[in-house]
């Protein structure tokens, strides 16, 4: 449905961030993109949503296709209109707008007023807590509520694909599980395709069915989520487990470096 073919991204005309990334996102599924800080995960999402250009980045090679049409030359609002919407990391609410105004702003591509109201009702159904906070300036919501709001706001655009960037960042574990459960629910009920970027590999591989691992601007591993969960390297580097299931100690750091070299 959505595929990247050998995509190269350069920032400021000189900094090579993505070095030929290829991945494909299956319709109706949850695909996860794992990797450490600075691996290029967020850049990959921004390449898809067309937001690179506002940061002086550019897709210089390769192509991005959505339902058979190239989208890597489109403006961000055209891409949203086609049904792909990105949720930024770091809970970027419109902080001076109320909760409900945030949702209205999210429905900007929806011309029909009645559908906007239906959309708001749908978001409140998924996130009942937001209904109670509808008139509060969103800058004053709690972290968890803000994360719910940005996901709900993205849902307002009625997307076919949601690009979710680190929804777990800085939230309490219980809240993270709640939000992940809702994402899975949205995936099932709305037939929403999700591309999930995460550092929390354990959680991401639980809800995803397909996974990619990025390092240094390249995809270094990919496969079905359960296969990745069983992969020795993933276990070691991303889930923090050794083969016997004990935590890794710093004594083995050398070993880590040696193994990692062939990965990148």
């Amino acid at each position, binding site marked *: 449905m959505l595929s990247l073919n050998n995509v190269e991204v350069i920032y400021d005309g000189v900094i090579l961030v993505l070095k030929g990334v290829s991945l494909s996102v299956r319709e109706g599924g949850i695909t996860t993109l794992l990797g450490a800080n600075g691996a290029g995960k967020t850049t990959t999402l921004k390449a898809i*949503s067309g*937001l690179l250009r*506002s*940061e002086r980045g550019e897709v210089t090679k390769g192509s991005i296709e959505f339902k058979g049409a190239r989208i890597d030359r489109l*403006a*961000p*609002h055209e891409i*949203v*209109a086609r049904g792909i*919407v*990105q949720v*930024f990391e770091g809970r*970027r609410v*419109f*902080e*001076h*707008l109320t909760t409900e*105004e*945030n949702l*209205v*702003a*999210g*429905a*900007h*591509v929806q011309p029909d007023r009645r559908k*906007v109201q239906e959309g708001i009702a749908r978001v409140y159904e998924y996130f009942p807590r937001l209904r109670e906070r509808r008139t509060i*300036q969103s*800058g*004053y919501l709690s*972290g968890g509520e803000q994360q719910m709001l940005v996901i709900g*706001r*993205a849902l307002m*655009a009625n997307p076919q694909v949601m690009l979710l960037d680190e929804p777990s960042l800085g939230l309490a574990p219980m809240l993270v599980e709640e939000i992940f459960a809702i994402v899975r629910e949205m995936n099932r009920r709305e037939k929403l395709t999700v591309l999930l970027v995460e550092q929390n590999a354990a959680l991401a591989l639980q809800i995803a069915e397909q996974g990619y691992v990025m390092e240094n601007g390249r995809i270094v591993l990919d496969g079905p989520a359960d296969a990745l969960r069983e992969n020795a390297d993933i276990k070691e580097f991303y889930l923090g487990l050794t083969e016997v299931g004990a935590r890794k100690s710093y004594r083995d750091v050398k070993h880590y470096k040696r193994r990692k070299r062939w990965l990148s």
Partner: protein
Amino acid sequence: MVEWQFTLLLLSNGLLIGLMYSLIALGFVLVYKATDAINFAQGEFVMIAGFVVAVALGAYGAPLWLAVPLGLAAMVAFGFGLERVMLRRLIGRPIIAVVMATIGLAAILRGVGPLTWGAETKPLVLPISDEPFILGPLFVPPIQLLGASVSIVFLGVFGWFFLKSRKGIAMRAIADSQQVAMAMGINVERYFALAWAMTGVVSALGGVIWGSMLGVDVHLSLVGFKVFPVVILGGLDSIPGAILGGLIVGVVENVAAGYVDPYVGGGTKDFAPYVLMILALMIRPYGIFGKRIIERV
């Protein structure tokens, strides 16, 4: 005249004039709210609008019902064009780039206006009488009443627009974060153009009203200087702030002119609002209704 009557007169005049300042400040606020650009050419916008309407009325003998819409259309086109040609290229640059660009623009307009339409003061006559209404102790010139009414109507309309309409919400979203707004499918550039066009509308109205009071020449652009105390007092991005700031500035300069001028020989009107502005900056830098940076702890 009795003392309290004199005071009341100063106050009522101040409030009416203040509303007219609010109208012009509204133009400034609209642009700042949506695009974060500080428009130092606001007064020059008003002057250009005044020129267009005065010349259409005077030199071409156009009727008023034609001249005013013509001024409106010209200023909307001017706003759109300006955004397309100059300001769009400055998006994402440091704020000083936009500031300097609009200061430069102001100087150019002050030159081009008189160059195109002649330097002499042109009358802009509205078909209303000069006879003041006498309401008890108050004398109210009809033009001030008209100006204040137009101001109230448009402040109300734009206030509603930002607060309730979907386009207004989108504009406020852009003001919070351009990048996130883009990610929500909001065509940011189109809204920037819309904001400048709305400033064009407000400037055209301001041009007609102020032009009919002061006459139209290059000095008409000086009303732009009153915008800064108004918006600093009220808050750079607040429509209620523009109203309140305008009222305060109008009253302060009138009262200062009424009570202090006789002792110092005049001129307090022009600097009293600025004294107030500096005080405001020291006490409440984001203005009375200005947006505060929200920090969650």
